């Protein structure tokens, strides 16, 4: 039993990891279909994990309906949302556009509820980016000064009005145009830093993956027994 509880998962992980990693170097058609099939499996397996989340949500909100803490009524809207999503989805059999090209109730729900909600939350960023700039973009050190200067230059250069103003101030006295300067920064110092970050990240990713495959990193398996 100890074998099944402790060793078997480690073997599964090791075999899977090694096979998938080696697959990358094998161009053969069999290896292609192997990885296609596995990625299929992954999708199926991951799909079931969603039910863990569903149960967690239900526990929280059914608990609220039972105990009725302040604001419990809003949980009703959550259930209403689930019902709307599921009901329109089942009526339309998961399709947003029917075979005749007409919009289904599911499609209507997506376009008029989900899409505006997503879009609106996303576009709040337009507000927060201004408030962050006003509140937090203070030059406290030399490093922050560099950050600010580059940011200002880029903001200026991204819009035609900025380029227009730049040219009307500097005219053709400068050997480079604004967009050339910005491009150079983007492709040289910024790229160098980006690469440094990426190389570090990739080494970290490989190191962690090796530990998982080798069974050294096994926190995902949880605690004792």
């Amino acid at each position, binding site marked *: 039993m100890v074998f099944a509880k402790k060793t078997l998962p480690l073997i599964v992980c090791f075999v899977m990891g090694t096979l998938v990693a080696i697959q990358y170097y094998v161009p053969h058609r069999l290896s292609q279909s192997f990885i296609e099939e596995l990625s299929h499996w992954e999708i199926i397996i991951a799909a*079931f994990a969603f039910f863990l989340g569903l149960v967690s949500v239900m526990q929280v909100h059914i608990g609220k309906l039972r105990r009725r803490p302040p604001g419990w009524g809003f949980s009703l*809207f959550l259930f209403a949302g689930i019902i709307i999503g599921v009901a329109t989805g089942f009526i339309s059999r998961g399709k947003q556009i029917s075979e005749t090209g007409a919009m289904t109730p599911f499609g209507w729900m997506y376009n008029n509820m989900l899409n505006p909600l997503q879009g609106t939350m996303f576009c709040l960023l337009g507000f927060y980016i201004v408030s962050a700039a006003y509140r937090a973009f203070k030059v406290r050190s030399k490093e922050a000064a560099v*950050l600010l200067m580059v940011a200002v230059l880029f903001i200026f250069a991204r819009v035609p009005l900025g380029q227009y103003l730049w040219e009307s101030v500097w005219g053709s006295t400068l050997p480079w145009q604004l967009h050339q300067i910005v491009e150079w920064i983007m492709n040289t110092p910024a790229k160098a830093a980006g690469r440094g970050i990426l190389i570090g990240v990739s080494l970290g990713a490989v190191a962690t993956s090796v530990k998982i495959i080798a069974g050294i990193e096994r926190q995902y398996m949880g605690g004792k027994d």
Partner: protein
Amino acid sequence: MNDFTMVLGAWVATGLTLCIFSFLYEDNPLFKMAEHLYIGVTIGYSLTSLIFNSMGPNIYEPLKAGRLLPILPTLLGLGFLTRFFPKWSWLSRISFAFVMGYSSGLTIPTAIVSQFLKQLEGTVYPLLTRKQGLLDFSLPALGHDFTVLVLVVGLLSVLIYFFFSVEHKGPVKAASKVGIYFIMVYLGAAFGTTVMGRFSLLYGRLFDLYTYRGAKYHYATPVLLVLVVLFLVVYDAKYKKPADAA
């Protein structure tokens, strides 16, 4: 799609948009309602997509057609659910092990290619230029050489900054300091370029609201806007303690 569903859609979309926007003013019941509805709808949406677009074509249809292979991943997937039964919950480890092994195996070679070798090959260039057999010291050529130098110095100093097993003092400290400046340039550039996209989105959203103001949509935007503002005024007057103000 007929007119009624179109107009209803405009009203619902506008209403929800304004409810979310009201959060910018303060946390209030309208936002709370939209927030909970939003979470619910996304869960319902995920569930439906899961059943019709994932489990249907990946499990049900192959099984119906007599292909039995999907049973294995299905069992592994069901393994997750054993977490609810403490006696059997160790079974979920096998499912986790499969997922972790698969993704780790996928990560190793691709991280080496796309982040390691690809970054490396774009950095190793000569620091000198040769043109028609002679070393080129013209201004553009020197400019190019300088660019290569900055690229190399930048990358090396940033890598030094990320050294964890060496104490940052003396020359290492100086080099890592240079590295930080390069990182700051990167962050500034990333900030400056992102602004554009954020305002495009906001523009798109406000444009939709503006479109829904017309008679074609039965004045959805102005009517709902007035209602939301009225609600906020009443809510503030009635429930908000003076201490909360400002």
